[in-house]
């Protein structure tokens, strides 16, 4: 009699192209703010009134809002 065995590597992951795009945007935006890319912003330069690191932080907030709104519109959950 055949028994049922669970497969080891079935996981919940992106399946459709839009899901993959959102996933890549999420991971990519995180990578933009950590080593080594953070070193691009890690300079004592004042740009448009604020240090570069402030723009990194503000950019992170804006990117998250944009990515999540795209995800919601596309029905990516």
């Amino acid at each position, binding site marked *: 009699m*055949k*028994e*049922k*065995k*669970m*497969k*080891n*590597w*079935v*996981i*919940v*992951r992106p399946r459709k192209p839009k899901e993959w795009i959102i996933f890549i945007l*999420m991971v990519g*935006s*995180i990578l933009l*703010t*950590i*080593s*080594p890319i*953070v*070193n691009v912003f*890690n*300079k*004592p*330069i*004042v740009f*448009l*009134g*604020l*240090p*570069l*690191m*402030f723009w*990194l*932080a*503000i950019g*992170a*907030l804006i*990117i*998250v*809002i944009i*990515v*999540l*709104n795209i*995800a*919601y519109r596309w029905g990516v*959950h």
Partner: protein
Amino acid sequence: MTFISAWGPFIITILYTITACILGYSAKGKLDMDKMENWSSSGNTMGVIVMIFLTGAGNVSSYTFLGAPGWGYSRGVACLYVVVYMAFIVYACYLMSPRVTRLALKSGYRTQAEGIGARFESPFLRILCGIVGAFAVIGNSLVQVIGSGNILNVMSHGAIPLWLGELIIVSAIAFYVYKSGLRAIGWTNVLQGVMMFCLSILVGLFVVYTAIGNLNIAEAFKTLQETSPQYLTLPGAMNNFPPIYWTTSILISVFSFWPQFWVWAAGAKDEDTARRQYLYVPIFYFVMIPMMIVGLVCVFAYTEFSGDSTDQVALQYCLDKLPWWMAGLLGAGILAASQSSAEPQFHTSTFTITHDVITPIAKLSPEKEGRLQRKLLLIVIFFIAFPLSVTNPGELVNILLVCYGFIGQLFPCMLGVLCWPRATKTGAIAGLAAGVLVVALFNIVWPNPLYVHAGIWGLLVNLPVFIVVSLFTKPASEETLRKFFPDYIMDQLYEEV
């Protein structure tokens, strides 16, 4: 100095506390708060607006108005790591919270530990996660309690000692959270959120103006660039926050799905509400930017600061140099930030201890559990959080960093709940135990070795143990897994042998 300019800030701060108490007390409406689901999750009645403020204001805490400017003053731009990680935590919340709402509505899992315990079919794992989660959340609450004590201490010119200030605020919180549960938190957070947003911008502008005589922020930073450029880069003025520590602190925070996130999601009306709130929550986090600017401006504009802790620098500057009513509003704003975060932390830790530790062990009925959780709130606040905060264990930001290390160890369990059906209870328990041990060692014995956050070290051990042990032990039953995973996953999960 006239009476009003000396004591006006203190009076405004106290008036705010009274207002919050009245609002919170009346929030319960017609809900019976002796029922566990009403006190814990507001009976699933919270809409998008309240949820946005519940989450946004709940996450913006004493850190924003005290810790962040304090770190800006002592270290520089390193304080911005909190803005970055709080932005990215929203990704995890957007993906996980609607699933949690679905589980809560379908199966009644109101806490993270309960969900984890049910998924892994392990009452022991539920208790373990409950203890780890409650411990980390209580630790986080210390940040708020200490912050509150600082406010009343500074506002009263030292007349109210730190411990008494802390006691006054925790008593106020206990008063309305006991009465109205999560609903009180939601409504007071709306008030507190609006206050925080307005005040952060106003105070930021006032501080820049008093420091340089105009609102040209660029001029303020040019001054800092010329006199102290180390404040504008990592590793910062104290040379202890290099890019690797920035990176690992952000990553461990992104992996931390806090127990109160689960409780909030379980209180949402539906999945779409749980999802939609996160589209707008990051807007709230802009409130942190002006306060971080305040801290950096104080580096050159407030060299005479001599307080006990840099956490007080922004508040003391405002008291010394801003109009009395502005300082009073700032005090109220900081209290708003502290209370809006402490409330859900006390609520969640109490609910978790009752629901996930005491009830499974003592096998309490829902009615007895409902009555116990409100009483236990008073024990958590007055006999655990308050005494710990009086010991003043450290800078607000450092306390936060330690707590994230522990809560991050629940991440593999959450992966097992939402993503990986093959994960087993033995793997989860082994990984969690190993991770917590590593975090404890790398906080107490050898703090953050190689400038890598202790929580990341914990995950580097936790995850492999979790995966390997899971692969060699028995998974949960198909019936249980069907509650947690979608049909398309279940359809491909098994093969016949």
